[in-house]
């Protein structure tokens, strides 16, 4: 797994950034979501992947002596996924409101807050 995941993460990052560079609101949001996946997987991979070694202490011992899978990164990722879900839900509603208010889904046309003359 350790050999495949880095390539997958790289592809996800590349895909996310590629989509963010598009002008359409929808592609922007999909890009942000994919970028979020990439970061979560990155966090998962970089904190080592250990298989078949649950972090359970046997009855006759007080601590773990052999290698075990670290449960903390998974807890972190779970938190990050939940937070990311909330943000993405908001962002999706926002682009819907944006499309209704601005009557466009082209980011290049959303320049009214940047112009000097208003």
């Amino acid at each position: 797994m350790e050999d495949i995941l880095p390539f997958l993460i790289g592809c996800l990052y590349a895909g996310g950034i590629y989509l963010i560079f598009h002008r359409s609101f929808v592609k922007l949001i999909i890009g942000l979501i994919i970028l979020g996946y990439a970061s979560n997987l990155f966090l998962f991979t970089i904190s080592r992947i250990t298989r078949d070694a649950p972090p359970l202490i046997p009855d006759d011992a007080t601590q773990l002596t052999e290698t075990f899978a670290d449960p903390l990164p998974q807890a972190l990722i779970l938190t990050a996924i939940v937070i990311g879900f909330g943000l993405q839900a908001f962002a999706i509603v926002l682009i819907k409101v944006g499309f209704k208010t601005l009557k466009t889904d082209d980011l290049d046309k959303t320049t009214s807050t940047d112009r000097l003359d208003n």
Partner: protein
Amino acid sequence: MENHILIVLLIPLLSGIFSLFAWGRKQLQQYIFLVGTFLLIVAAGFLLNSVLIHEVIVLQSAGWEAPFGISLVADLLSSIMVLLAAIIGIAVAIYSFSEVDEHRIQFGFYPLMNFLVFSVCGAFLTGDVFNLYVWFEMMLISSFVLMVLGNGKSQVEATIKYVTINIVASTFFLAGIGILYGLTGTLNMADLAVRLQSVPNSSLLDLAAIFFFIAFGVKAAVFPLFNWLPASYHTPPIAVSSFFAGLLTKVGVYAFIRFFTMIFNHESAFIDNLLLYTAAATMFFGVLGAAAQMDFRKILSFHIISQIGYMIMGLAIGTKLALTGAIFYIIHHIIVKSNLFLIAGIVKKSSGSFNLKKIGGVYGKYPFLAILFIISAFSLAGFPPLSGFWAKLIVIKAGLESGDSFLVIVALVVGFLTLYSMTKIWNEAFWKKVPEEYMEESQTKSVPLSSIKPMIIPVVMLAGITLFIGLFGESVLNLAMMTAEQLLNPEIYIHAVLGNDS
């Protein structure tokens, strides 16, 4: 003693929950926000007081010992920041009574403001990197909704930009956390500081530092990551902009100072140079942007960026005097910048527009307001004896002492240009007469100042604090010096968090 931290966090959380229960009842919500922020000032004052006595206060949440649980840590820097957050909170609370419209209040303006204060305080007080991420996200989601609340065309546009860049920054933050965890197996800041000293792979550490640099750089609006700020800060109501301008960028600066004094304090020429050049470019390009603008709020927004540069400059030089300057600058800037935004709101109400070309004659109509503006604006530009002068003086003196003459020259030029745009606002809004062609528009859109009197109260309060910092700067300077000393000796912090066996 530990409970002081808890009380500081519980007050805004509870007032947020209470104001959710008071959904739709405007006056009750306003009352809750006012009482909540007032109690927060008292609690933050007590916290600062006990931090002054005990140096660092640590609360291990749920009793889990340090690197395993989440530690909440209050040192001098955190408690000063919490106190400032509370002060801006109460100023915005009083201001919002007259400024924020019914429509926004119906859709939860007050609960959101409470949760924003809550998350800002949490970000200042946490001692755990991932917990900081969670506080940041809480802060983001409240600020997203506050920014878009009201659904104006420009607000929606601004929010799309703000949301995009901040979600991207969050993914960088998460990746940085991943690298740190992979290197050390811990996320407690104190524990990280200890373990990173024995990590041999410093190039990977530099990479992590860059990831955090991008994440915090977007929050703090440093060069070249600042473009979202002038595109968005001028769209929401002034009560919201003022809170954002004063505090949200400073959360980024706080995170910068915390990380680059404690966690990434290894000798890395690359990181040092990165900070130095960023500081210079942030100051310079921020002030150039302001020079081109003719909108009251946009000028102020660009000035946030250039002032952030001074704070990063203090951090980049990194001597005791420079950090003192950076902290003094943060204290001064939070108060002054929020106040200038509040004044911009009053000028808009009393003359009808934010566009400097369309307004004028405020000095003739309301000389008292003009004096309040002068105090804050000249303090921002660095006139003696106002607070900004001391802040700039310390930072520049530190630059001269450490031989960074290039930075000092940039800082001085930027000071002049700041003065230029402050006098531009003065000339256009306060001094000149209302242009003939806009006379009618100005009269129909404006309301007399006597009808919005409550809005003046927070402005007077903040201007008073500015004067106090300027005239009795020594006590603030001493406080900043003690803070800098604490930051340069992270052993105290580490020892307090990890206990005796570290």
